């Protein structure tokens, strides 16, 4: 089989996986956002949409709501203001939805799959180091990279396409023939370009450390050394902030600014067009989460899981090793990558439901006056630290490598503790009622106070 064909088939499979993931996530996130906010706010949340089979109602913990919403969106009136620019008005949602999907093209969701010889390698272990050889003979198959678009300027691709999302929001605002939309569009444009600068500069530190523009190599570097969040903690915060701002979510949801400019650039959109913006936004959330994961949270890397299997180690001391077949490793990586992305989305939803929104000038100041200089400082500090590291002795470098393993351990232990905490929490009964009794006892009427004279 010709290698090009294999690559093509593999690409289609990967596209299917990514599209499936993204579209599912968009729906699930809608549900998550609503249900999670309900839990935060002591509400029940959506739980009514159901499927009736016989006399039984299946609500699937509210998961049917996004489906119902999508179906409803199809059948709602599609409204275009009479004086609106019809072409641009229609183009905007398409752009807003398509651009973030395209962004997923360079996100590595697994390590390179060495297909070279299916019968031998896929079920066997592969060596931990080294890359897959290119297809050399007619019978061997080419390696399949962990991303759809295998280009060496992944970051540039992302920044290039991210601009399209901005265009979507801006022309939506511009073409709607509505002042609120216009304000929203302007806000969106200003905000997105401002934070794109901060975002672009905040990841320069990462490039300096990882020495590549390819996201899969970045992920691989993190797997071999340690996660980006530990080498670029400051950059991580900057990037996270900028990423939330780019997704236009509270506290950065000014372009929509529900209570100020009604719904910003979305005012004149209804039905499916609105739903497309909505979906686009959640896809953006997924994309920004994948970027956070790929850049700072080790991408598809699982602590101590390497290409050859699990190797528990501390510095040079290898504690335990278990070889795993290549396919299993890859599958684990895919799962863990999607898991991490989901986790980051989940965390971002908390941010949205905790903080109020910025004001326009505060937002711009934060971007230009704080994040931009801070990211420049980050570049500078990273540069110094890297040079210092490169110039230092082998012992120091070994110490740092050991420290890297230590971080791996930290992550592992933290995850395990988190999972155990949740598991333990789940088996113990809730404390609501007993606590309420306590409160009542504590806060009962104070002892009969003397009748005091009024204060004046």
């Amino acid at each position: 089989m010709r290698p090009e064909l294999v690559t093509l088939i593999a690409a289609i499979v990967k596209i299917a996986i990514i599209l499936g993931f993204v579209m599912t996530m968009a729906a699930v996130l809608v549900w998550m956002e609503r249900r999670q906010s309900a839990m935060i706010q002591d509400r029940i949340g959506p739980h009514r949409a159901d499927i009736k089979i016989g006399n039984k109602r299946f609500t699937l913990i509210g998961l049917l709501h996004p489906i119902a919403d999508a179906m409803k969106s199809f059948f709602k009136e599609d409204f275009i203001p009479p004086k609106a620019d019809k072409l641009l008005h229609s183009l905007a949602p398409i752009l807003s939805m398509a651009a973030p999907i395209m962004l997923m093209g360079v996100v590595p969701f697994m390590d390179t799959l060495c297909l070279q010889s299916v019968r031998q390698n896929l079920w066997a272990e592969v060596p931990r180091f080294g890359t897959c050889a290119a297809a050399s003979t007619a019978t061997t198959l080419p390696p399949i990279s962990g991303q759809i678009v295998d280009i060496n300027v992944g970051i540039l691709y992302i920044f290039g396409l991210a601009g399209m999302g901005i265009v979507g929001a801006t022309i939506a605002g511009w073409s709607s023939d509505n002042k609120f939309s216009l304000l929203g569009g302007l806000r969106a444009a200003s905000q997105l370009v401002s934070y794109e600068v901060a975002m672009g500069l905040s990841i320069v530190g990462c490039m300096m450390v990882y020495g590549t523009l390819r996201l899969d190599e970045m992920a691989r570097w993190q797997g071999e050394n340690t996660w980006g969040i530990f080498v670029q903690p400051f950059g991580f915060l900057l990037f996270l902030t900028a990423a939330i701002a780019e997704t236009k979510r509270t506290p950065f949801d000014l372009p929509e600014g529900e209570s100020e400019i009604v719904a910003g650039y979305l005012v004149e959109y209804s039905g499916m067009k609105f739903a497309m913006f909505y979906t686009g936004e959640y896809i953006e959330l997924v994309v920004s989460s994948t970027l956070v994961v790929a850049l700072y949270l080790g991408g598809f890397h699982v602590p101590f899981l390497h290409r050859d299997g699990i190797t528990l180690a501390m510095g040079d001391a290898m504690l335990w090793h278990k070889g795993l077949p290549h396919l299993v490793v890859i599958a684990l990586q895919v799962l863990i990558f999607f898991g991490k992305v989901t986790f980051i989305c989940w965390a971002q939803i908390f941010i949205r439901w905790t903080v109020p929104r910025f004001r326009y000038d505060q937002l711009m100041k934060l971007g230009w006056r704080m994040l931009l200089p801070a990211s420049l400082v980050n570049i500078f500090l990273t540069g110094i630290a890297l040079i210092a590291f490169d110039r230092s002795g082998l012992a120091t470098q070994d110490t740092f490598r050991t420290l890297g393993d230590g971080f791996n351990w930290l992550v592992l232990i933290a995850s395990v503790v988190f999972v155990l905490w949740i598991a333990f929490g789940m088996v113990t009964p809730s404390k609501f009622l007993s606590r309420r009794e306590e409160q009542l006892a504590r806060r009962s009427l104070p002892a009969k106070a003397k009748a005091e004279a009024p204060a004046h």
Partner: protein
Amino acid sequence: MEPHDYDIDEDDVTLPTEPMRINMGPSHPAMHGTIRMIVDVDGEAIRNVDVQIGFLHRGFEKMCERGTWNQVFPYTDRLNYVSPMICNIGFAMTVEKLAGITVPERCLWYRTLLSEVSRLSDHLTCNGAVAMELGAFTPFLWMMKARDHVYDFLEEETGARVTHSFARIGGMAKPPNAEMKQRLEEIIPAVEDILDEVEKILFKNRIFLDRLQGVGAITQAEALQYGWTGPTLRSTGVAYDVRRAHPYLKYGELDFDIPVGTDGDNYDRFMVRHEEMKQAIRIIRQCMQRMPDEGPIDADAPGIVLPPKQQVYTTIEGTIQHFKVIMEGAKIPAGEVYGYVEGGNGEFGFFVVSDGTGTPYRVRCRPPCVFTLQAFPRMIRGHMIADIVPTFGSVNMIGGECDR
């Protein structure tokens, strides 16, 4: 194009921009209570605002002139609809002042208590809405939960959550529930818990503070020029509170503080309301201790107060009294008085004219939030579009009260 030296006086080279005129309201998410603001903005900055009210005008004063005195109470419910009980009591007290009736001791305590419970619901709504419109939805819903506790209590007492129509001239519609104090003892801690949580999540959050501080500030002198009263006036540092300045009901005997602010900005208004809720809880606790459990609620005024139902069913005298009150309404002696209470937004006054018949000749309501709203253009000019939201929120414009 002439070349410009960009270091010369900037006014010469600034491009002239036209203000954009946008309608905020009547149906705008931040304009709770239906109000229209025509805003001239330059970019995001507000150049001028014209506030237009009246979208909720129901002709309160005209409607009052066609029913009996007691039929005014349902209308007063709808004045300040987040603290209707204060409006109810305020009107009842004004007419009682006109008629020269004194209500029994127990009724005074009961009214004090209900007023403060209502104040709690008023400030919970206002502060919650301020937070919500700034994007902090979670504390808003927590506060709504607290308000729901308050409403539950009021529902048990009066029979309706919002439109109580509970006060009557010369008393209350019904005596307090037997288990009223016990219920309050459960509800008040729950409300306090929520207030604590709101403090934790909001009061140190810089985004929230930045949105409130220094925005919509007004000086004492200007606040007085605009006739402000209530929490908004107190936020500028003037400790004028009707409950203290002219104690009515039982406020003269109660121990509570008047929270005042210093800068008169949104933050101060928010904090004054927050502190007032705590003081309200303090007052409620004192009322619970000191309110007698036995005693009459209605004044002894046969032509004004309905007789006990049992008398109506069995005796002709009771029936006659009942019919006289129902058919002709309470006959209030001719005259005119101005009565006032401390409402949720400040001095809530009624100017009442009677011509001696069972129907009010003129009922005028002094709506405190109109005074505050009137100063709104002054407060917001020069700020940004987004500042309309917290400033308008902290003004606490209540449509029913503002437009009557």
